[in-house]
């Protein structure tokens, strides 16, 4: 292979924007123009900034500008011990905090060779699936709101509250859980946990029909989502998408099946996949995933094995041997991985988070051009980005 001699030019955002030439005058005398979408825009879900090149209503090019909520998590992680790592990940994808906790705990357990029992694994799985439903419910509500229907937002939050109540009872927190610890769980489950989860499942099941009546079946929703933002299977893989975004494109890639962790091997569930990879597929994949998650919880909730909820002393020192460790799991938004480099001391020498939203957002720049502003909003919403997870 011939090495090309061109040296890298390091540019700034201004240079990048100026380099996007505005296409010349059309016969009508119109011209393309730039608009800043965000960082304070209602549908960029936080502090994501998109520099849009528009032609009337049509989006021509998108430059995402990241970093408005960059907190230097990876640097901070180097100053903290292995036990304290966990609570940092609550603040990445705050809607999947339990799942994020699990990944960090799993990688620390792998590094320090901490054994955990079946009870812990089962409870972790149940919580992860509860969190998946909870996260998708919030997404569903916000999705409705982004498309202009405000009512699903409140229905979504109302039903999400049922799960949040369960979390509050067992964990004591509603958003930043810090529940799963290296070596087990912070608390054992609440005595009412099983009862409450069952009540939640029997409440949720009829609700899906209502969601379908209110949103999925609605002609306006269908027309706005169908064939919008198509991401085909090949580019979804190439662009590094994961989670529901990848599966909606027709790639059956789910770590829960491919490399089962927790007790996913023992339960029977199926992976919803799409065919076209448009917003509608991403929408329906998530809607079906919620039902599948409830199925998983139903299978596990009656047979939580007995055992301790923490296999080591909460204050015990963790000193993994030097080396590289990596663990990844399927969160509600895709693959969340934690890369850990230990030098044998009490603190990791390097931590890197492979976050799903960073990769999924990248798809936006490829699929949104050509659509309207309204399409852009539904695409961002269907990718389900959580900005702190992108910026870290």
């Amino acid at each position, binding site marked *: 292979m011939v090495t090309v001699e061109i040296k890298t030019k390091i540019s700034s955002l201004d240079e990048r924007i100026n380099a996007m030439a505005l296409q010349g005058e059309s016969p009508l005398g119109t011209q393309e123009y730039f608009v800043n979408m965000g960082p304070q825009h209602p549908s960029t879900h936080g502090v994501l900034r998109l520099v849009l090149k528009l032609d009337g209503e049509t989006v021509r090019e998108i430059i995402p500008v990241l970093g408005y909520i960059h907190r230097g998590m990876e640097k901070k992680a180097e100053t903290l011990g292995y036990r304290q790592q966990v609570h940092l990940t609550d603040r990445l994808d705050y809607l999947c905090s339990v799942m994020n906790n699990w990944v960090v705990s799993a990688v620390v357990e792998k590094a320090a060779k901490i054994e955990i029992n079946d009870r812990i694994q089962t409870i972790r799985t149940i919580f992860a699936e509860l969190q998946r439903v909870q996260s998708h419910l919030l997404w569903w509500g916000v999705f409705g709101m982004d498309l202009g229907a405000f009512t699903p937002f409140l229905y979504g939050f109302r039903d999400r509250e049922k799960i949040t109540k369960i979390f509050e009872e067992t964990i004591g927190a509603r958003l*930043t859980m810090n529940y799963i610890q290296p070596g087990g769980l912070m608390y054992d489950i609440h005595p009412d946990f099983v009862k409450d989860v069952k009540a939640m499942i029997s409440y949720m099941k009829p609700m899906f029909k*209502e969601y379908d*009546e209110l949103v999925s079946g*609605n002609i306006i929703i*269908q027309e706005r989502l169908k064939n919008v933002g198509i991401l085909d299977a090949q580019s979804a893989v190439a662009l590094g998408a994961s989670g529901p975004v990848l599966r909606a494109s027709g790639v059956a890639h789910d770590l829960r099946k491919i490399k089962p962790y927790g007790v996913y091997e023992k339960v029977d569930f199926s992976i919803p996949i799409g065919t076209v990879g448009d917003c509608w597929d991403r929408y329906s994949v998530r809607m*079906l995933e919620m039902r599948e998650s409830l199925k998983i919880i139903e299978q596990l909730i009656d047979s939580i094995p007995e055992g301790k909820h923490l296999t080591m002393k909460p204050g015990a020192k963790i000193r993994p041997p030097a080396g590289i460790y990596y663990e990844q799991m399927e969160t509600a938004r895709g693959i969340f991985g934690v890369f850990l480099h230990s030098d044998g001391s009490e603190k990791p020498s390097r931590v890197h988070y492979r976050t799903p939203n960073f990769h999924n957002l990248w798809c936006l720049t490829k699929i949104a051009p050509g659509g309207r502003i309204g399409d852009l909003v539904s695409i961002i919403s269907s990718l389900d980005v959580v900005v702190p997870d992108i910026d870290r």
Partner: protein
Amino acid sequence: MKTVIVARPGDGNFVSRFFYGVKSLLTGMRVTFRYLVHPSTVVTQQYPENRKTLKLAERVRAQLSFTFDENGFHKCTACHICEQQCPNASIHVMDRKPAGSTKSELDTFIWRLDSCTFCNLCVMVCPFQVLKMNSNFESSVYDQKLLVYNLTPYAGPASSVLMKVADVEERKKLIDARGPYDGPTALSGFPLAGISKQVFPETTQIGAPQ
């Protein structure tokens, strides 16, 4: 791998789509109408009015607090484990050595709510179960300085030491009252001004700029 392929809305011809559309709109309206005519489905809680009936789960983490025994003494031995486990440096255990004693005892237990992330690690690691999280979540104030709490009303040894002293008057001599923490506090940045002299050695000086 077991997979399900998601359903896609029918393409249909224009007329059938049109009538499907009208029907779907009416179905949606039926859902919302059902909620309108059933006031029992309202889930709103009117917060300040329902304070008396508001029940939070017992594990809710909203404020760090001390547990005291029936005599009003705590069991803290100023072992600093919670301080070391705190990922945000929100806890400052200030200890003192009474004259003629080699064992240090708790002087002031400072907890900074403004930098706490409620990770609960301090509660988990406390060897004497002194710390606990309570559900008193109404802690907003107008001045950030007021978010620096002193959790103990007195400075003195742990209850195990105190209770060995039989005489009540003698016991009282061992402890000194401590009010709310009123030491100087930096509003931003780290460490707390004022405390740093006592607790933090020079090594805590912020690294020199590049």
